[in-house]
């Protein structure tokens, strides 16, 4: 394609990407460097149905003047990144100085919101992703070997967890694992401990969240792998059969190598998705046990007082986190691209 033709062909996409991806990111990054002006507080007398009290309020005229002068607010540089709600440099250094052992250090670290959220998010990401790829692959192979007439039905049922809205799906599971729910009662019965509650225990809650994560995302891996299975060269499979390969050997030496690029693709998408885990935390009402960067953004934006700068900072950290997670894959793709160019 001529450069000129390519340019006009690509221009609408580029414009949309600029508008909907690049500009919002620039705006979020900018927001994370600025904080609201110092509040000008004045004494006030507040009266209402319960009598009058002396209180404090924001002086609107003075604040308005400050805003007129500098509409972006105060420049804070990286100070929001460094504060306790985010990377907490001072607190981490303090913990490092004062803790006697690594165990104590990590306990202190777990008390800081960002690191606690990272603890859960990374566990969730690295447990869910491989397991859901395996499960998705297993379902794909199983469905693929079914009779033609059964396939359609099974594909529909296998896709259900993905079709169900994440919040609804997690709510259904949440009710089932309630200490009075079907699964909750069953687990208490099996463990022979009537007071056992999944929702009251952090490890069990993590397990529930991870199980939900695998359940809801496996269909995605399944669809991709199932599509890939349709392209497996029949000649190679047949020659493997003639050579006396067992079913497992056929999968191991013919199917899996053929699907390897798809595994990279699914892993890429799922690492990204799982790192931004949010719906199950909300649906399972697991805020006491598990937090993620996305749930921090939600609570910053929906609290009694909105904290836009804090939410922006967490968003930038999420982008950086996703970039770090994807870097091995991206580097490899880049190398392959370069290799191909030579």
């Amino acid at each position: 394609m001529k450069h000129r033709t390519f340019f006009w062909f690509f221009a609408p996409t580029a414009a949309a990407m600029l508008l909907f991806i690049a500009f919002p990111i620039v705006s979020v990054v900018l927001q994370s460097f600025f904080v609201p002006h110092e509040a000008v507080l004045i004494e006030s007398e507040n009266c209402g149905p319960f009598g009058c009290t002396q209180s404090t309020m924001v002086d609107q005229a003075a604040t308005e003047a400050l805003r007129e002068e500098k509409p972006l607010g105060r420049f804070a540089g990286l100070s929001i990144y460094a504060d306790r709600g985010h990377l907490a440099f001072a607190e981490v250094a303090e913990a490092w100085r004062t803790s006697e052992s690594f165990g104590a250090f990590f306990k202190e670290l777990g008390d800081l919101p960002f690191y606690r959220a990272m603890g859960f998010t990374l566990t969730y990401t690295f447990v869910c992703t491989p397991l859901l790829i395996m499960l998705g692959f297993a379902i794909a192979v199983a469905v693929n070997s079914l009779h033609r007439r059964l396939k359609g039905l099974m594909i529909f049922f296998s896709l259900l967890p993905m079709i169900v809205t994440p919040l609804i799906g997690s709510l259904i599971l949440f009710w089932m694992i309630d200490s009075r729910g079907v699964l909750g009662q069953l687990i208490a019965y099996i463990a022979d401990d009537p007071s056992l509650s999944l929702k009251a225990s952090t490890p069990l809650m993590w397990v529930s969240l991870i199980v939900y994560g695998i359940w809801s995302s496996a269909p995605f891996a399944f669809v991709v792998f199932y599509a890939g299975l349709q392209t497996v060269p029949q000649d190679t499979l047949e020659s493997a059969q003639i050579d006396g390969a067992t079913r497992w050997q056929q999968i191991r030496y013919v199917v899996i190598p053929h699907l390897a690029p798809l595994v990279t693709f699914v892993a890429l998408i799922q690492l990204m998705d799982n790192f931004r885990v949010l719906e199950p935390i909300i649906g399972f009402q697991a805020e006491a046990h598990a937090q993620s960067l996305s749930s921090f953004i939600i609570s910053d934006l929906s609290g009694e007082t909105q904290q836009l700068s804090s939410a922006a900072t967490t968003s930038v950290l999420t982008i950086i986190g996703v970039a770090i997670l994807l870097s091995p894959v991206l580097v490899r793709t880049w190398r392959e691209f370069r290799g191909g160019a030579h």
Partner: protein
Amino acid sequence: MFLKKIAMAGVVSLLGSTAFAGGHGCAIDARVSIVGNEFPAIQTVGAGATECTGAEVSKNLTADHQKINLAGMQGNPAEYTSAIVANSSIVALMNDDVIRPLDDLVAKHGQDLKKNQLITINGKVMAVAFMANAQHLVYRADILEKAGVEAPKTYEDMLAAAEKIRSMGLMENPVGGAYKAGWNLAQEFNNMYLGHGGSFFEAGSATPSINNEQGVATLNMMKALSEYMNPDFLTHDSNATNAEYRAGNVALMNMWGSRAATLTDAEGVSQEVKDGMAIAGPMTVGGGDQAASTLWWDGWTVAKNVSDAEAEATFIAMTHAIRPAILEDGEVAKQAVWLIDGYSPTDAAVGVFAAAQMNTTPYPMLPYMGLMHTALGAELADFMQGKESAEQALADVEAAYTAAAKEKGFL
């Protein structure tokens, strides 16, 4: 010609005055758009405003109102011409200067409003309150009678009663509480902390001061109560707590007045639970005489970034929605402790009235209280799960609050 005009004007004004005298007429000539919470009393107010004719009245009543009201009023012109708020949530609107003083409109159209309905901040009317609310004791009289205990007046009595009920095998987890990590848990801390005589900030400043004896005593009492709650208590908000009560699993709980009246109206509630339900005032704690609860009002505001015509229409429609005549409907009268002229308390209102008589502290309307509430909600769950000490949890709250308050320019 001139005479004709005068005659016309006379007819129009006559029509107008009869319409208003009838109490049904509500004519507006500009857009009204309301955002607010969704509990029954607010539904009534929203429906009342839509009775007005002459221009469009739209309402968006949702539990997520607080996530959208500020954004919906910051634009110019604002999407919402009125936000229904409480004494906690008006602060966010005040901080960002999106609501207007109502003094001129009160003088013009507010003849039916009582003086104590007017929320005055620094001498200006900023909101019109229509109902009061508080958390107070809701209990099962039949269970307490079986256990041979009186309705508790203090949290210590509540613990003793709970122990008795459990040891007699009447109920496994007799105490209910909206202890869901986040807003609810923080609110229970607020109640108990005020009951212990604590104050959230150093006098006259935004510096936090909760890591003290009262704070520790507060957390210890909350922990002691949680031992008698359903083990899932950190996931129970008011709705889930009420569900436990309706299912007959709870005998004692601290519950919102606005939910008490309709508590047992749901389908499938056993007759035993319906008959046994009783309401009393808020409890005290730690030998103090201050009720461990907070007083709340719900009221409406008018947006700043709308035309004067829209503001006036909004004021007329909202005043119409809370006119004294709405109390003639018995169902409506029961929905809340109305601050409207002519309200006489129903049986469901005794808890909130007791709270008011005990001089319960109103929820603090400080610009930085919201940040404190958020910090409490985020950091106390660890203590409740026994993962850290009370002192550590309170230090964490202060640290989290300080970081947020610095960002917002309060410190």
